[in-house]
């Protein structure tokens, strides 16, 4: 009876035991806090300090950010990365849509092709980088060999060695890697379209192109937009491929924000972690703004129901 009196009026919710919830979440939260949240906060802290080894960090206010404003290499890197992040998604998704349509139209071996085209995305950027730097090799690379074979030998050049072609060449490498991935997703979206809708379109006397343009594409629009955002985010992060192939050369023509941050933080003998942190912070906001902007731009007013 005393027990009953002591108990608070509001009983614990048996469906949501707080002890179990804490126990289940704690490991993930600890790892998240220690290796994601804390480093991010630390980077923010760095960005307003001068951080040099063996000296206490020194508050410098927004000096780094002001310096950034006049850092031509930084702006070059921003320009390159944005170009990459805008061109690559469009290339990947457009080609992938055509490929998906081919498989959707029941091209022979489509099951095999789907698996084969997906493969590049499984490779590490290190392997891909080395492989493609050979393909772009001036003397014996596949691109130049092909050009010479079809009589366009005068076009042959050192693709990654020339400032005008290096970035475009690398963009084609990411397209090579990611198109198959996008194709698989688009194909899945197409296959899950209700066949009734397509049959209805056929009864409405829709031709192949009309069906594609007025029925299929609008219906898979959310998937396409989602892929564009995903690809955009991926390219804003790009580091490995550039690092393995050109390291930002020639003449900063392939410098990306990631490689520049890495160079300023770990390679150049400036040894100040504050300045690259400021770049990272700025970049963080640019990526967030980009994602929010794209999501806002692509927002669907009414959800499709079928």
């Amino acid at each position, binding site marked *: 009876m005393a027990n009953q009196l002591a*108990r608070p009026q*509001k*009983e*614990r*919710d*048996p*469906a949501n035991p707080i002890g179990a919830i804490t126990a289940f979440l704690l490991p993930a939260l600890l790892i998240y806090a220690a290796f994601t949240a804390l480093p991010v906060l630390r980077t923010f802290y760095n960005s307003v300090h001068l951080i040099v080894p063996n000296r206490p960090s020194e508050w410098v206010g927004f000096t780094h950010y002001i310096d950034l404003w006049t850092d031509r290499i930084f702006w070059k890197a921003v320009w390159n990365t944005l170009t990459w992040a805008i061109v690559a998604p469009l290339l990947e998704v457009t080609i992938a849509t055509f490929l998906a349509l081919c498989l959707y139209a029941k091209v022979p071996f489509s099951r095999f092709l789907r698996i084969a085209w997906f493969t590049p995305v499984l490779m590490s950027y290190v392997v891909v980088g080395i492989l493609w730097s050979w393909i772009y090799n001036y003397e014996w690379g596949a691109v130049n060999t092909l050009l010479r074979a079809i009589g366009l030998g005068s076009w042959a050049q050192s693709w990654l060695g020339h400032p005008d072609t290096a970035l475009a060449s690398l963009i084609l490498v990411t397209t090579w890697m990611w198109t198959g991935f996008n194709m698989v997703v688009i194909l899945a979206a197409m296959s899950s379209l209700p066949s009734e809708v397509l049959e209805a379109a056929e009864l409405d006397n829709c031709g192949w192109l009309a069906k594609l343009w007025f029925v299929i594409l609008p219906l898979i629009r959310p998937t396409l937009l989602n892929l564009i955002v995903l690809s955009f985010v991926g390219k804003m992060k790009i580091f490995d491929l550039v690092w393995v192939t050109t390291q930002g050369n020639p003449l900063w023509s392939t410098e990306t924000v990631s490689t520049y941050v890495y160079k300023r933080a770990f390679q150049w003998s400036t040894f100040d972690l504050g300045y690259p942190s400021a770049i990272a912070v700025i970049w963080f906001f640019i990526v967030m703004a980009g994602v929010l902007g794209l999501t806002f731009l692509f927002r669907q007013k009414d959800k499709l129901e079928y």
Partner: protein
Amino acid sequence: MAIVALDNVGKAYGDGKIVAVRDVNMTICDGEFMVLLGPSGCGKSTTLRMIAGLESITEGELRIDGERMNAVPAKNRDIAMVFQSYALYPHMTVRDNLGFGLKRRQTDKALVKRRVNEVAASIGLTDYLDRKPHALSGGQRQRVALGRAIARDPKVFLFDEPLSNLDAALRVSTRAELIRLHRELRSTMIYVTHDQVEAMTMGNRVCIMSQGKVAQIGKPMDVYLNPASTFVASFLGNPPMNLIPAIVGEDVIDSGCGRIRCKGFQPGRKITLGLRPEDLAPIDSAAEAVISGRVISMESLGAETLVHLDTGGAKPIILRGGRETPAQLDEILHLTCDLSMARFFDADTGLAITPGDKK
């Protein structure tokens, strides 16, 4: 073997803003089969889940065998539950499904094994012990769910619409099996359903719920014969009781399309007259008729015929007649009724009018 008592039990969500169940009072006797019946959203499942310990009780008290259970976790209440979806563990064989609850309480493996075999034999699944649920038919899955509860030999069995996923024929046979089971086990059972046939045939008592509250508790036939309110009257019975708005005159009740002799009511009072379709019978004389109306449709169901009459009211009046069609379409039919079978409800509150309350 247990007595389950609910004292003013209630359930509110979101700091009391949404009340799902309120003031449920009932005592389920040892070995009793209690059916909670009501339309969807009436709070019957929530009540059952509170008894099970799957939902917290925000008001009142739940006792099993006199012991307060509000704060006791589900696993310590010694109850078993059969779910509407059966909730069989898809990755375990029938044998493991039956033994899963036992293993937690009984460490002696030989005992568990014996019990599982016993139960499997009693539900006729001995040959299926090594199958997984996806390789069973709907009826077999249902039996495994039942067997899982039996194997535990709990104080109280809880059923949450266990037959609603079965087809009609299987439902009838499983119903009979559950009745047999209850007779054999003599355990306390609480059974939630929205199917009145299950409630009528299986329950020792029925608790009809509406909008989170208990509308009436009683033996099935008592509830059927003497519904406590127009809600119960219209919910129980298929087709339901005819409810006709009427006004009390001098020693007579006027339904607008007929009259019934009746003493004791205060003249001028508005009431609702309740007449079961099977209590109505056609007569020739219009003067004697309790109700008259034009036949608008007839449904021959084989054993009986339902005749719908338009009396000018909002809903047609239904008469349950014999196999031979007692009427023609568009014919004017006069109906009479045994006064003792007529029920009266207050027009405003919808509650039954008891003899002492006629004024």
